[in-house]
C-alpha cells in the first residue's frame, strides 16, 4: 500500500463517481429526504418517521403495501424458478458442442425478445391470450389467481436471454483441457455437463439470483404497460414499482403524494438493501477465505 495507489484510485474512480453522484445519488438522496417531511401544505415541515408510521398503520396504505410486497415475492419466485433454469438449459444446449455454424443464429433468435420494448411484449401476449381474438379461452389476465403468474411468465419470456447469455459466457470460459480430459475418460455429454461444467459455473448462480432479485423488486414497466398504475384485477398484479409510481406521481383516481411516495421508495430500498448486503457480505467473506 503506497501513496501512488491512493492517487490512481482517485483518478480512476473520480469520473464515474462524479457522474454517479451528480445525476443519480444526489437526486435520489434529495428525494428520499422527503420521507421525513410533510410538504402537503406547500412548506416542508420535518415530521420524523410520521410518514412511515402512516404507511404501515393506515388500513388502506398498509394493505396495499403488504399486497404489493407479497405479489413482488411471487413475481421474483417465478423468475427465479422458471427463468434461471430455462436460461441454463438454453446456455447448455448452445455450448453442447453439437452445433456448428448455427450457434450464433440460435443465440440471436433466443435473445431477440430481450431487446423488445414492453409495449410490444404487452400488446402481443395480450392478443395471443385474448379470449375474443386469441388462442386461450380463459381470461388469464382477468382472474385474480392467474393474472400475476401470467404477467410473470410474459416477463420470463422476454428476459430469459439475460441469464442465458451470462451462463453461456461462463460455459464458454470452461477450459478446453478440462473438457478434453473428461472426453478421454469416456464421459458422455450429460455427465460431462453435470460433473465438470456445472460445478465450474455454479458461482454465477449467486450473481444471477441476486440480480434477478434486484430487477424484479425494481420491476415496473411491463405491469404498467399492461395494467396501468392501479394494476388489477383488484390490485392482484400490483408490485412495489407500481405502488411507488402511483403514490409518488398519482394516478387518474389518486392524487400524487411526494412524501408518502418517497417513504415507499425508501422502504423498497431497505428491502433490496438487506438482502443484497447479506449476499455481498457472504460473498466477501468467501472471497477472503480463498485468498488466505
Amino acid at each position: 500500500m503506497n501513496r501512488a495507489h491512493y492517487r490512481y484510485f482517485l483518478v480512476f474512480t473520480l469520473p464515474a463517481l462524479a457522474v454517479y453522484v451528480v445525476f443519480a445519488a444526489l437526486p435520489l438522496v434529495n428525494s428520499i429526504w422527503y420521507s421525513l417531511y410533510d410538504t402537503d401544505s406547500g412548506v416542508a415541515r420535518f415530521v420524523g418517521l410520521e410518514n412511515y408510521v402512516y404507511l404501515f398503520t393506515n388500513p388502506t396504505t398498509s394493505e396495499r403495501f403488504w399486497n404489493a410486497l407479497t405479489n413482488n415475492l411471487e413475481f421474483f419466485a417465478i423468475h427465479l424458478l422458471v427463468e434461471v433454469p430455462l436460461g441454463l438449459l438454453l446456455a447448455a444446449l448452445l455450448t453442447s458442442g453439437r452445433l456448428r455454424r448455427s450457434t450464433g443464429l440460435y443465440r440471436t433468435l433466443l435473445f431477440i425478445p430481450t431487446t423488445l420494448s414492453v409495449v410490444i411484449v404487452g400488446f402481443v401476449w395480450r392478443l395471443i391470450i385474448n379470449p375474443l381474438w386469441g388462442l386461450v379461452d380463459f381470461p388469464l389476465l382477468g382472474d385474480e389467481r392467474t393474472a400475476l403468474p401470467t404477467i410473470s411468465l410474459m416477463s420470463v419470456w422476454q428476459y430469459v436471454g439475460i441469464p442465458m447469455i451470462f451462463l453461456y459466457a461462463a460455459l464458454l470460459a470452461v477450459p478446453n483441457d478440462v473438457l478434453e480430459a473428461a472426453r478421454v475418460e469416456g464421459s458422455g455429454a450429460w455427465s460431462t455437463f453435470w460433473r465438470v461444467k456445472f460445478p465450474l459455473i455454479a458461482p454465477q448462480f449467486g450473481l444471477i439470483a441476486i440480480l434477478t432479485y434486484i430487477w424484479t423488486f425494481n420491476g415496473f414497466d411491463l405491469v404498467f404497460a399492461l395494467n396501468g398504475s392501479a394494476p388489477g384485477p383488484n390490485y392482484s398484479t400490483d408490485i412495489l414499482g407500481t405502488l411507488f409510481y402511483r403514490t409518488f406521481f398519482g394516478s387518474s383516481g389518486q392524487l400524487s403524494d411526494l412524501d408518502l411516495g418517497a417513504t415507499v421508495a425508501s422502504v423498497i430500498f431497505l428491502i433490496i438493501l438487506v438482502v443484497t448486503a447479506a449476499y455481498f457480505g457472504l460473498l466477501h467473506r468467501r472471497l477472503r477465505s480463498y485468498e488466505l
Partner: protein
Amino acid sequence: MHAIRASVALVAVAAAVLTSACAPSATPVTTGGGTAPAAAGEKTVLTLGSWRTEDLAMWEDEILPAFEKSHPDIDVKFAATNTNEYNAAIQSQVDGGTGPDLITCRPYDVNRSWIKKGYFEKLDGKPMLDSFEPLALDPWSDDAGSRYCLPTAAVLAGFYYNKDIFAELGLQVPTTQDEFLAVLKKIKDNGKYTPLAVGSSESWQLAYNGLYSIGPVYWKGEEGRQGLIKGTKKVTDPEFQKAFDAFAAWKPYLPKGFESLKYPDMTQLFTLGKAAILPDGSWNINQVAVDGLNVGVFGPPADVAGGQRYLQEMPDMAIGISAASKNKAAAEEFLAWTATPEFLELYVNKLPGFFSMAKQPVTYTNPLAQAFADLKNGAQLTPRLGLDRLSAGTPPFDDEVWRVLQLMLNEDLSTRQATEELQKGLASWYTPQQ
C-alpha cells in the same frame, strides 16, 4: 503520471461522445421554463401540454394554423403526453421548474391540488371568463372561487347501438330500465350477437360508462352527488344501492372472457358487428362509426316510463397558463382565442364527441355528435359521481368504485358488500361523512 494523462484522455473521449450528442438545434427550445421572451420581430413559441395524443393531427393541421393566421407572431406547439403519464410528467416538469406554457387541466381534485401547488396563473377578472357560466368554471376553481383554467370541452356518456342488429332482431330503442333489460335478453336469446360490449379489465370504464351513466336516475343526479359531498347521504342509502343493482344486472349479457377484455377490445367487438350495444363515452364517436357501421345513440334509460331522464355530462378538459411560463402575454392571447366562436366551431366539429362548454350555441355537423347533444334536451345533467372532493384522500372514492364494480362482475361481490366497503373507505378520511 502517464496513467493520469491517459485516463484524462479517455474521459475526454467520453466527453466528446457526449457533446457530439449536443448538436445545437436550430429550432427554439420549446419548454416553457427554458424559453426567453422573444425579441422584437421574433416569433414567440408556446407549448400546449395535453394528454390527447390522438388529437395531434387535428391541432397541427386545423386548429393551430387558424390561430397562427390571425396571430402571426405566435407559434404554438401541441405537446401531447400519453394520458397514463400525463399527470406524472406535468408534475415533475413544473416542480422542476420547466413544463409547457399552457397546461391542459384535469377536472376537480387533481386540478385543485395543482392550483394549491401554484402551477397556474389566476384568471380572475379576465374578460374571457365571461363566455362561460359560473357552473362551467367550477371544476377548475379553488375553494375561494378563483378561476385558473378556461373550459375547453365536456364529454357525454350513453349507449351506442348497431341499428342493423336492432332491425334484424326487431328491437326498439329502450327508454326504461325494464325495457333495457328486455332488449338485452332478446339479443342473448337470439344467440347471434353479444348483447353488451363490456369488458371489466379496465375498471375505470365500468364506473365512467357504466355506473356513473345509469346511476344518476336513481340517486337523482346532482341531488345524490351533492348529498355525498355534503355528508347528508351515504353510499349505502337505497338510491345508491338501486344504482349498483342496475349495474349488476348487466352481468349475464357480457361477452365471454369479459374479465380480461380491455377498452379497445370492446370497441373492436362493436365495430366488427359482433355486439349490439356499447356503453361508452361521446369521445369514441369517430371510432365506432368507422367503416360506415350503421350506429345510433340512446341515453341512459329512465326509472319508469315517462320518468325524469338524466345524462352524465363530464367537464373533461380546460386550459390554464403555467405560472412558470415566460410568455404569459402570448399564452393569454391564445387562451382568450379558445373562447371565441372561431375556435369553438372548429374544435367541436374537428373533434366530434367533445362538446363546447361556452354559453355561445354551437352547431354540430357530425350526426352522431348531434344525436348525443340532443340527448341533453329534457335531461338533467350531472358529472361523474366520484371525482369532486370525494377522491382527495386515501382511499380515493373514485378508485374504490372502479375496484368494487370490477369485483361485482368478476367475483360476484354483492351490492350490499360493495356499497358498505365504499362507505367505510369514505368515512375513514372524509370529514363530512364521519
